[in-house]
């Protein structure tokens, strides 16, 4: 915080209230500690990128934000993670509602083996968000449009979601995640299984979605982090080495390890 130079590229005049805050988060798998004292703020209008070498815990940390780690046997989380003011690990927090508020897109596109329509409609349906068929049609169209897929699939909504190409499947998964109207969307290396053209479409989509909800993206691709994010956290060995504005991290890293990683010396 002692950096004297202000960051002119940050268009945020004063510090907004964070959407999610993580304070001193530790994650253990059995006896092994995977995350060690991570503290990060996620802002509503920003895309936050988590970068770092393989096995550094960035995906693990991402999965603590919607408690997907609950499904891993032996996983234990300590520390304080809040969505707005709500402690998401508090006993009274309903994990189903939490995951509706904090959506997730995975590394490998994983559409349900159902129709495109049902893939998108599944979330709203189980949460009772659109009881009438006409409402549901609207929700599905809106989600697919936002995911940039509507034009490609509007004539074949009843086809299986698994029949789409990899890039389309991933956008379908994004549509599925945003159909329930989340406040935060977590993306776990969403482009690592895609070709460059499909990757470019997803990145474009992230740009368009920015501002509607907070986005946290894990990526191996340094250029991608630089292109899509406003904030970047560099993870190493379960710790956050450096967290700040993406422009600073990539042009003026404070830590040598960050610099080494970004310049490709290791990782």
């Amino acid at each position: 915080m002692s950096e004297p130079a202000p960051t002119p590229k940050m268009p945020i005049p004063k510090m907004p209230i964070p959407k999610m805050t993580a304070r001193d988060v530790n994650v253990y798998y059995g006896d092994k500690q995977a995350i060690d004292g991570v503290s990060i703020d996620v802002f509503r209008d920003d895309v936050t990128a988590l970068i770092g070498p393989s096995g550094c815990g960035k995906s693990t940390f991402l999965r603590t934000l919607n408690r997907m780690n609950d499904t891993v046997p032996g996983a234990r989380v300590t520390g304080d993670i809040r969505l707005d003011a709500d402690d998401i690990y508090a006993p009274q927090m309903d994990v189903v509602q939490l995951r509706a508020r904090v959506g997730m897109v995975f590394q490998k596109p994983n559409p349900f083996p159902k129709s495109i329509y049902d893939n998108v409609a599944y979330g709203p349906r189980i949460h009772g968000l659109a009881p009438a068929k006409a409402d549901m049609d609207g929700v599905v169209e809106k989600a697919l449009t936002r995911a940039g897929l509507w034009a490609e699939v509007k004539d074949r909504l009843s086809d299986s979601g698994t029949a789409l190409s990899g890039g389309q499947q991933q956008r379908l998964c994004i549509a599925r995640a945003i159909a329930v109207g989340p406040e935060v969307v977590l993306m776990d290396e969403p482009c690592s299984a895609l070709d460059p053209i499909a990757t470019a479409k997803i990145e474009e989509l992230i740009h368009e979605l920015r501002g509607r909800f907070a986005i946290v993206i894990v990526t191996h691709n340094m250029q991608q982090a630089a292109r899509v994010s406003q904030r970047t956290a560099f993870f190493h060995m379960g710790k956050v080495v450096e967290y700040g504005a993406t422009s600073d991290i990539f042009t003026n890293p404070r830590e040598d390890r960050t610099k080494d990683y970004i310049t490709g010396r290791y990782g």
Partner: protein
Amino acid sequence: MNSPAPPTSKWAGDAMQARLRRRYAAERRFRWFGFGAVALSVGFLLFLLVNMAAAGLSGFSQTRIAVPVDFRGSGLSINLDRMTREQAQSTLAQQGLPDLLTLSATAAFGPEGEHYLGAAAGAVARDAILGDPSMLSRQVIIDLPAASAIDVAAKGAGDAVSEAAVARLDAQGKLSSGFDTLFLSGADATDPTLAGVWGALKGSLLTMLVTMLFAFPIGTFTAVYLEEYAPKNRLTDIIEVSINNLAAVPSIIFGLLALALFINMFGLCGGSPLVGGMTLALMTMPVIVIAARNAIKAVPPSIRDAALAVGASKVQVVFHHVLPLALPGILTGAIIGMARALGETAPLLLIGMRAFVGDAPAGLCDRATVLPMQIFLWSDEVDKGFVENTSAAIIVLLIVLLSMNAIAITLRNKFEQRW
């Protein structure tokens, strides 16, 4: 660095060529072993099918003897306008229809003619009369089912006396043969010409129904619980090992368990499809649990993640995604288990299904027998007529098995989804 002689020169060398030949020979040998194994199993299967068909198909046909019957002066009379069919049937029996048939046979074929007609002759004649009451006032020729000895002799396996009788009847053109409807509609009987497979078939179907109703849901939910809910600890390990062992327990032990539990303790109706089905359900359940667990395990975790991440609860994940995707595998396991249960005899011996049951069971608590038990019982009979009944019943059992498998494959293909 100086590398040794370039390796390319060795590819054409003798050692390399010999190695190549050995590799090709090994592959050829392996292919022939495989082909031989397939040929052997197909050969055995064909032998079984041909053998069964040859021995059993004649069990579906019945030898009939044309007997002239003169009803004039017999005193038989019925009035279908005032009688129900049952009343008419008993009236005919009381008025001496069976005796008349015996007399007619004796009159036509000599003194030994009374042994020519089978036990079902009375019923066939009765039905003929009910179909056309006017024949009671004239002489008619009725094709009546032959006695077991004649039937067997006509099919080429009888004793000398019957062979001679058949030769004589055949020379007179009195013999004919037709489809034995009684075999498919009747139940067990002491006379092979009367005995039918329907009683055992219906018993088997009812038993399978009970087995399916118990084993499928319990097995599936056990698998779901163990895979999706149970914590991984010592207790669940023990349960898992126990279930795997249960699948290998000899079936007769399940019979003892069922005898002690269902009949002696709960006092359920012994020898019935209900208890039989529950016994076989005990036996089938571990098979279904194992198959269902494997099918559930094979559902990609990414589908579970996807559903959880849009806020599906655990139950919703299981019922909306995991079970539908696992269903083909579960069905396959269930059908394999059911097929095994359908052919099972040993445990049913102990719960009292080894009994002569002369009627098809009307309900789940009636005394009944099942197809493999019927086959076992008939194969024990002395009368030669039961030999072909046995083989014919085996054919029926195989047909039921094959249809069950066909249904399984159809269902599996219907529910199968790709991801």
